[in-house]
């Protein structure tokens, strides 16, 4: 179903511009007609993949309610596994118990939630809500910062200080005649002093506790069932806390399945968002200085300079990438450009961006979101059937 109009971009806000011809074509019909129409018009393609966890798609000819439903599900209804209960025996570090537990909860865990039961499901043997080996993953964190660690660290620094001959001037700031040069030299000297201070053995030794220090402890039949799976944290270089010599942490963390609705730590996306596509047309040709201003200053990335065919002019601006448009409306500052450019937002063309935290790949997340939406439809249908049956 093609949109029945466009949003014209004006200096403040958008103006809906109706297309009566399209509305007449979009007359409501039977559900089958809607599906055929959708199947014919719907387009989807990959725009960009900035990294393995980030996917940008383009949807065309789909309604905003559907795209918004997918976004809402991605954010809050796809289950993942995260630490929920922490049993703490020793915590002599400076981070408070509850703050430490909060940080542990936020650490993403690389375990497929579809292999784990949720806490509400009963197994027949256990009561609902009790931790079993079918619904809980257990991690242990045993870290001690000992005096020996500090000693080793001291020895390491002494070795590197002896090997390095440049560390004579520890923080001495050289003076200079010219004030601007002096500023530059003081900044550089400060940086060097900082570098040197790191090598001084007097700097207190802190042991950093990273998320990779947590170990998985298989429970019950998990050792056999999950012997070929990798149960770990997604990123093992997340800093949990720092310990000084004599401080210790010993705790057991239980991870379970949950959804973003319950707590944001369960959300599988860093964020999922969509925006409408813009369509930019040049009503009048833009040449030379104005073109250069447009390309470099006003909307970078959207326009490009091409050699112009018009005699007496050098270069012309042409639209090359409307997806880079940020709707800053900067070009309207220049009255000539404000007349020459027409920007329009198309209400059924979306740029959908999914950034995954790392549990799933972003494409897989979208597939899951669609499955969950189907599950919701089924649920409403079943509820309606039950109500009818009564």
């Amino acid at each position: 179903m093609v949109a029945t109009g466009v949003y014209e971009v004006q200096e403040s806000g958008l103006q809906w511009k109706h297309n009566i011809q399209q509305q007449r074509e979009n007359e409501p019909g039977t559900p089958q007609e809607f599906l055929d129409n959708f199947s014919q018009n719907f387009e989807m393609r990959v725009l960009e993949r900035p990294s393995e966890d980030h996917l940008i798609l383009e949807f065309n000819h789909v309604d905003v309610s559907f795209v918004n439903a997918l976004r809402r599900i991605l954010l809050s209804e796809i289950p993942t596994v995260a630490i929920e209960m922490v049993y703490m025996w020793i915590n002599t570090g400076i981070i408070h118990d509850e703050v430490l537990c909060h940080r542990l909860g936020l650490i993403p865990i690389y375990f497929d939630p579809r292999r784990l039961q949720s806490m509400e499901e009963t197994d027949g043997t256990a009561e609902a809500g009790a931790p079993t080996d079918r619904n809980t993953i257990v991690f242990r964190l045993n870290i001690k910062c000992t005096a020996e660690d500090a000693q080793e660290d001291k020895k390491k620094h002494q070795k590197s200080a002896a090997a390095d001959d440049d560390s004579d001037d520890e923080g001495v700031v050289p003076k200079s005649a010219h004030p601007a040069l002096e500023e530059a030299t003081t900044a550089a000297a400060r940086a060097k002093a900082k570098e040197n201070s790191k090598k001084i053995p007097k700097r207190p030794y802190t042991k950093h506790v990273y998320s990779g220090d947590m170990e998985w402890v298989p429970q019950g039949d998990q050792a056999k069932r999950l012997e070929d799976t990798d149960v770990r944290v997604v990123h093992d270089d997340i800093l949990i806390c720092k310990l000084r010599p004599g401080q210790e942490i010993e705790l057991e963390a239980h991870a379970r399945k949950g959804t973003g609705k319950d707590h944001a730590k369960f959300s599988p996306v860093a964020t999922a968002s969509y925006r409408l596509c813009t369509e930019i047309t040049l009503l009048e040709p833009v040449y030379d200085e104005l073109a250069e201003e447009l390309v470099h200053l006003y909307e970078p990335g959207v326009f490009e300079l091409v050699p112009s065919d018009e005699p007496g002019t050098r270069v012309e601006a042409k639209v090359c990438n409307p997806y880079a448009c940020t709707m800053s409306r900067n070009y309207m500052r220049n009255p000539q450009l404000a007349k020459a450019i027409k920007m329009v937002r198309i209400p059924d063309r979306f740029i959908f961006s999914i950034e995954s935290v790392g549990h799933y790949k972003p494409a897989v997340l979208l597939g899951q979101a669609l499955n969950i939406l189907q599950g919701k439809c089924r649920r409403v249908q079943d509820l309606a059937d039950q109500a009818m049956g009564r």
Partner: protein
Amino acid sequence: MSVNEVKLKKAPISFQVKGTGPATSRTFVIGDEDHTIGNSARHILMQDARVAFAGYSVPHPSEPIMHVRIQCKADSGCTAMDALKDSCQTLHSQCDIVLQRLEELLPEVKEDRLQMEKIILKDNEFFEEQEEEEEDDEEILEDQDEDADVYMEE
């Protein structure tokens, strides 16, 4: 369980039909649903020629309840319930179409689905084996009890 554990509450009503009069106009009260399915279902209902009026609302953001109001045209011969069920079915099929295109576009989705099916099969087999072992253990225990009874009689 701990004292301060928070459990997600379920809505008190999961489905209720409100409205008297001809069956072409009804308000459906659906619990544990929100704008996610409300807006999508409303849009699909609007594309249905038999529906004269379709709207949804979330009466209060703190309560997970959603109302859908459907009024069908008098001469269309379809009831509000039919329209609701058809719209859910259409949304389901729409998701199927999008899933199909997604799998064509990005093969990793299909690979993940097939892999997951295999893993879940394996897990289910593992659980069945476990249950069989437990049943065997129970049988052995029963035999022991029988022996105990005999002992007691003597």
